[in-house]
């Protein structure tokens, strides 16, 4: 499975990944001047907080969010192995938020669903990786490790 890794030395904390994630994925209009003023406000799925490091869903092999979701909204795509939110069935209980070790699930009170990176499942290529001005973000094959018990 391919995951997004950050080269810490190249990340300048410029927030472009957040901006374009919100514009290209989350917004309705997909055009920045309009997306900025959309209501509800588009929610980016990647976070540049405090440190110069863009963090998004790690698509854990044993995903706590899938375990915690009470109605099967949090799912894994069998082909790609990516974890995604099936938004139509999300009831905003925030159990997933409660268990995500990386804190990358946004309990969006405006959208009333859990918002999480799905590594641009339906796109050719993840947007954040595409726009990063310094190529700090890269798509990398995850090295498999032996299965860990809970």
């Amino acid at each position, binding site marked *: 499975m391919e995951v997004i890794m950050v080269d810490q030395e190249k990340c300048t904390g410029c927030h472009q990944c957040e901006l374009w994630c919100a514009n290209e994925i989350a917004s309705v209009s997909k055009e920045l001047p309009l997306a900025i003023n959309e209501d509800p406000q588009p929610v980016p799925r990647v976070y540049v907080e405090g440190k110069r490091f863009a963090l998004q869903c790690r698509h854990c092999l044993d995903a706590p969010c899938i375990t915690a979701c009470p109605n099967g909204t949090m799912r894994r795509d069998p082909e790609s192995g990516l974890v995604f939110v099936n938004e139509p069935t999300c009831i905003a209980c925030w159990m997933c*938020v409660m268990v995500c070790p990386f804190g990358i699930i946004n309990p969006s009170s405006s959208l009333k669903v859990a918002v999480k990176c799905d590594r641009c499942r339906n796109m050719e290529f993840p947007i954040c990786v595409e726009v990063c001005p310094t190529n700090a973000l890269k798509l990398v094959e995850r090295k498999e490790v032996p299965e860990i018990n809970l």
Partner: protein
Amino acid sequence: MRHIIIGGSAAAISAVEAIRSVDQTSQIDLFSDEETPLFSRVLLPYYIAEELSKQLLNFRSLDFFDENNVIAHLGMRVQEISPDSKTIRTADKNHYEFDRLLIATGGLPIIPPIPGMDKEGASTLKTMADAERIYNFKAKKAVVIGAGSVGVEASISLKRRGLKVSLLEQLGQVLPTVFDEEASSIIRKSIEDRGIEVITGEKATAFKGNSHVTSVITATREIDCDMVVVAIGIRPATELAENAGIEVGSLKGIRVNDQMMTNIAGIYAAGDVAETYDIAHDMININAIWPCAVEQGHIAGLNMAGKESRYAGSVRMNSIGNFIGHPAISMGMIRAEAEKPGAEAGEEFQEIKKSTKDIYRKLILKSGRIAGAILVGQTQKAGVIGILLKKRVDVSNYIPILMSNSLNFMDVLPLIRRNADKFKEPEYKELMHAGL
């Protein structure tokens, strides 16, 4: 290998998936005493509130049993387990043999010995049948007895349906086993702001009415109503186990080891019915919440299928999400009291609180490790605290970061790196190389 699973909710289904991840061929028979399969109990209040239709209560698709090659006996109660002959007997007098048995019977709603409990209009809220009964009541005024998670959500659901609602709680605050006084008062205000009457510190002593309930009596008052929902808690459904000689613990749940096996080889238990090691409280406990049931069912299933797995332990976690409009999360211990009988000497508790205009946050540390956390208002990073709790990391030097509004994972990465032996999963290892 023949597997039998008694139960059809979180633990049971999780066990099925675990078994099938290892073993696609052995027979699995699943017995559930409820007719409706695969619905999530957690969502019943949403059904009552008319926010979710019945189909949307499912947490797996309806062809789950077919897809996973499970013979599902729905609406079929198991009457007896015979460990010696390794068989079970069902209500229709049939016998089924097993090599491995999982008891995932969950809990039963506690029915208080209140006179009038059997009147029409009074119901618990546990099963689909309960939910439908409540859904179909034509009532104008409801009293919900018990302000636990189920009670609070039920009262809000009924208010959304247009009923006048009173929420009655015996103890001094709403959600007494979930939140502390401060958090609870914030949530109470949210509930009251919706027009729900909240009465705490009073116990229901009787229901009045003829065949149909017309009011609830407490020590100080009489509350008129035409519906009562009783949600004062659950007790583990251990009759089957007890009758079979399976050991039941002091908390009245089935005792299991860290492979989810009972005292009888080949018989496992998981979910609300089981007593497991509670990481936060550092003692044996029953944590009857959905994620724990799923985890335990998973471990049980793996072990049943021959793949040795150990359970690190459970942590109680509750989230009041969108329902009350005020995100609130609680995990582990609620108060820094030595809840464990005979607490070890030298265990130092720390309680750190922060209360601002819109946000309440509390951390409870025991010997430098997180034993509990409450977050109200700003909950997005609760999981960061949660993982440090679960992995029993000493966070003594990180308290300001954990209490900060801008807490984020990267800030605690150095701490995680220092405890690398506890964070072996690839998702952590990948990030540890980030040269911070």
